[in-house]
């Protein structure tokens, strides 16, 4: 196990990356720290967050409410709240430094290279515009297609997401479609220009479990066939476990662990990950084996301990209070942010 000072996390992750495959990563988030200036103080929403996504890989970001997972996704897309201030860090997407890009440059990247799908698909679509036309809008903005070909491409996009009877569905309004269909339309819009990366923010929350399975299968299949990277934001560890190649676990604005899925689920190194696993009901758990995590999320304003899990952790040592909180490399594809990992 090698402890790496937090400023050098890109080295630790770079090692993880090269060990995993021989291609350069699609997305690298390095030491991202972000604050929100709010009425009652400053909220330290993200601190020293780092992760990578390889080409063609599905990375899951798992955390509970308040963990900062959505904030991070929005920051990558450049859609974060104007009240946010990025204190430190770098986001590299396919070689481009996103944080240094202008709004015009980001607008070019968004939709063409980097796409996002959201929770509540019916509300994320324009309710008074036909869904086919909404797909055409994306194509018109980002792809060099002649006007007369737009409709054909839009229908093809609908076919690709396995919507039955796509010619007829082109003219449908979002309220006429079920939740699952709307999510497919949103995926069609996101993938219309064959982006290099898809960010999916809780795409199946609120959908029935059978619909969820179908949508997740679709995302996985499209991701593999197009060699598209995917960043899946979810609170459901079981879902991430089935569909993701690697998982990053977040707690109170920190990435606490980042590892290949099987490794994370079999041998979690961070106490929070272990407790989260123990608290998640699976077909094999029972009420008495279900544990809960003591304490509560720390207040993200004001003075925070060096390790934000410290007050809820049974393995806390005096060493845990010493700044900075380092990254520890457990193995080639496993890093954890803990002084006393399991």
């Amino acid at each position, binding site marked *: 196990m090698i402890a790496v000072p937090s400023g050098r996390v890109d080295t630790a992750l770079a090692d993880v990356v090269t060990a995993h495959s021989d291609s350069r990563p699609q997305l690298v988030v390095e030491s991202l720290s972000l604050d929100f200036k709010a009425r009652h103080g400053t909220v330290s929403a993200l601190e020293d967050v780092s992760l990578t996504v390889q080409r063609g890989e599905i990375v899951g970001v798992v955390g*509970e*409410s308040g963990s900062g997972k959505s904030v991070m996704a929005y920051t990558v897309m450049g859609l974060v709240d104007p009240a946010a201030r990025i204190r430190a860090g770098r986001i590299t997407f396919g070689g481009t430094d996103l944080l240094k890009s202008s709004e015009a440059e980001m607008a070019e990247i968004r939709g063409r290279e980097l796409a996002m799908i959201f929770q509540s698909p019916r509300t994320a679509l324009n309710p008074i515009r036909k869904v086919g036309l909404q797909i055409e809008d994306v194509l018109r903005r980002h792809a060099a297609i002649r006007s007369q070909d737009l409709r054909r491409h839009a229908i093809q996009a609908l076919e690709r997401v396995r919507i*039955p009877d796509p010619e007829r569905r082109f003219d449908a309004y979002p309220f006429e479609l*079920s939740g*699952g*269909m709307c999510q497919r339309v949103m995926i069609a819009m996101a993938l219309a220009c064959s982006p290099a990366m898809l960010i999916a923010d809780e795409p199946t929350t609120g959908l*029935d*479990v*059978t*619909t*969820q*399975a*179908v949508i*997740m*299968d679709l995302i996985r299949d499209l991701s593999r066939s197009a060699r598209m990277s995917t960043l899946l934001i979810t*609170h*459901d*560890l*079981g*879902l991430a*476990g*089935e*569909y993701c190649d690697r998982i990053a676990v977040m707690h109170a604005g920190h990435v606490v662990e980042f590892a290949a*899925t*099987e490794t994370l*689920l079999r041998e979690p190194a961070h106490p929070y990950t272990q*407790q*989260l696993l123990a*608290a*998640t*009901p*699976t*077909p094999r*758990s*029972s*009420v*008495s084996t*279900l*544990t*809960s*995590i*003591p*304490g*509560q*999320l*720390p*207040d993200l*304003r*004001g*003075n925070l301990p060096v390790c934000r899990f410290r007050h809820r952790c049974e393995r806390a040592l005096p060493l845990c209070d010493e700044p900075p909180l380092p990254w520890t490399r457990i193995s080639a594809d496993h890093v954890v942010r803990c002084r006393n990992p399991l």
Partner: protein
Amino acid sequence: MKKPIEAAPSAQRVNESDKLPVAAVVDPKKPPLLSVNKLFKLYPVGPRRKGAMLHAVDDVQLDIASGECVGLVGESGCGKSTLARLLARLIDPSSGQIVFDGHDLTAMTAERFVRSPERARIQVVFQDPTESLNPAFRVFDAIADPLRRLFGIKDAPELDRRVHEAADVVGLPAELVVRYPHQLSGGQRARVGIARAIVVEPSLLILDEPTSALDVSVQAVILRLLADLRDRLSMSYLFVSHDLNVVRLLCERIVVMYLGRVIEVATAEELFTAPRHPYTQALIAAIPDPARRGEQRLRLEGSPTSPIDPDPDRCRFYGRCPQGSDRCVSASPALRTVGRGHLVACHFA
């Protein structure tokens, strides 16, 4: 800076459930606590003269024994919420019978039932603790209101005692009883909802997705609390949820609904290991399971058919079902026994 409220004391209390028996033993010779017979709930839709009816609950038969925990699962539009509301007597059925501990609850309207002594014996824990607590009421008033209204208790010390007792039982710290809901966390609000339901000592507790709005770690605490309470207060549970993993934890028997009808009933174990109805099989296969990564699983495409004026001689699942034959379109399958305590409504099972 203000320290966040510690939930640790309550978490320790719940650990005691490890020492208690897992579930009350159900005596098959005793009559069931709740017996539902040929229950229908139809809503008129569209122009009145056309007479189109939406079959929200369609010919449901169900028994819940005393001390038993029954799960009710199904997807959106299957009628489980409507059935829960019917059993809670918040709405009136179109036809059918609900017999609770020997009393026919359908003999009076929901309005009149509010004043009957049986009202206190069936209570509901609602989904979404944010919406189910009155923002203008303090926790104390929220819990005391049923005592005032159903038991007519006006004596302040008596109210105080009972409210604090209920708060104690659900692990809510006493200092939070004077707070308003927006000053509590999600888990604390969930506890208030439970306290409010159990303070009148019901025999049947209907839980409508009680943990779906909570984080996983908080959900675990609340589920253990519910298991603990079930044993301590000998209540029957009707646990409505879309999350099969959660239902499996607490329930002995599970009822699966589809488009208003009950299509399978089995013990929790058997439903998960050997589901017989194709819909249940797809439902079980859809549960995310890290152990099955990369496998091609059974998937259900499409959406349910319309619940408006369904053909009575046709299986509701036909078309979406991976199987199908002429029998499926000539006769609607009835619930029949295929094993001990295992009923299925399918021609193929």
